[in-house]
């Protein structure tokens, strides 16, 4: 009785190994379709208080930026984000909207640009989605 894969050779798992390499390198997002998360940062990419990017309070001013990329949500102030994200002047309403952010006002740290499934009560179980 054959109970194993037909070919006794290492599997071709290109997507998996690429994802693993990226994950181990600290890019925990999801390739080009990854979730986009915005933080208020200084010019070095260090997360600062979100008020500093509130255009209603004169935020930005060339010193602080909305920095958008495939980052993990919920990172604390002081975290330095990797390069490769999109830097947006908080005062540029059109650029903000193009990126899916509210045109004006404060952007909460780690705000999700596109919402959807996953925010409901079910997903607060404290355990993984797998079983």
């Amino acid at each position: 009785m054959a109970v194993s894969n037909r070919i006794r050779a290492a599997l071709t798992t290109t997507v998996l190994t690429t994802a693993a390499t990226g994950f181990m390198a600290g890019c925990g997002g999801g390739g080009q379709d990854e979730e986009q998360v915005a933080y208020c940062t200084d010019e070095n990419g260090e997360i600062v208080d979100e008020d500093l990017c509130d255009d209603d309070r004169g935020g930005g001013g060339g010193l602080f930026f909305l920095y958008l990329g495939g980052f993990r949500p919920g990172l604390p102030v002081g975290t330095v984000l990797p390069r490769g994200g999109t830097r947006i002047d908080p005062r540029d309403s059109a650029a903000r909207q193009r990126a899916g952010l509210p045109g004006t006002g404060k952007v909460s740290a780690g705000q999700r640009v596109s919402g959807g499934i996953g925010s409901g009560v079910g997903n607060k179980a404290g355990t993984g989605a797998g079983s």
Partner: protein
Amino acid sequence: MRRIESGVVRPGWEAEIEAQGLVYNKTHLPGGEMRSYWREGPFYDFTMAEVQRVESATAQLFEMCVAAGDHIVENDLFDRMRIPPMARPPIRRTWVEEPPSIYGRFDLRYDGEGPPKLLEFNADTPTGLVESAVTQWNWHLFTGQGSDQWNALHDKLVAAWQRNLLKWERRTGIRPRVHLAWTTEETSGEDRMTVAYLMDTVVQAGYEAIELVVEDIVLDDGDGRFYDPQGRHLDVAFKLYPWEWLIEDEFGPAVLADSMRPGGTTWVEPAYKMMWSTKALLPILWQLFGSDPVLGQFLLPAYFADEMPSSWREYVRKPLWGREGANVAIVRDGVAVTEMPGRYGTEGFIVQEFAPLPNFPGVDGPHYPVLGTWMVDGEPAGMGIRESDDLITDNLSYFVPHTIDYRPPRAPG
């Protein structure tokens, strides 16, 4: 079935298994300590006859689950199972139409002597796939231990996508793209790697695979259909996200409504998996097959908590919708002696006869294995074993590879 303690330890194995996809190998313990989820060195060995016995039990358990599904639908047992009314039409519909279903995993108690016994069926969002299908296969090939391994997962997954997607294509006239979604709430990498691996199997089946996170799924409030952030319609969407969470989400009602319309998204696994992924399945299986001399041997007596025989003093209590051991309690003399934390239970409990897991002790203490046997597209496809130091298998268990017909190397000289 036996536990070999001193198998081959591959040089650089930790980096190797991470590079192969097991990026969630390092487990952070509550005390801050780090340990390896993968056991390198020890493994379980089975005779081919044992594997055939477990495989046959797996196939028969699946047939029982199919019969239980018919029974639930025909007798409208959804109230009893606490399945919400809005989920019932899609469950009934998918049960009849049999849209693509790819995989599921039975958890079995097995000691190599008596019959395998069903502990539960992880039918909707089983994980442990990467280590079962990839990591332990590569381990087997590299170490050369055992004459074989029960592991046809990869071949069968590719074939499952081929068969199901071709059927979908013929029915709709559209060549589907497959979106595969995980939730960013899961940060260990396990869900993401599971999705990435399944993408490999979709691609090898000849179809386009697109990764996304469930949080990015877009509902068009004009046409009520679902899209990815790039505006592509979700034709077939694999979701590593349980149905019982999905229907509670804001988009839950829209997901169910869209899935009932022609051209709506086909979700994998299908909605009917809600009947199997709840522990409410266990008392129903026992009611249907407990007295069957052949099939009953693969089941443990189980009841809805409010129907528990008054004579029962020793049993395991499980919440209907719990995951990874959460809120499971071992009750002895009517008192919970071990109880796992969690948020489940308000939906109700089932009770199951307490059948302690067999112990395969090693120099480092007791080892209680649970056999995870995989079903792919309705057929048994392989096995992955997790073992714990304790009687409840939770998310801090270890994965231990297995072999068939291992012969220890001869001592030199």
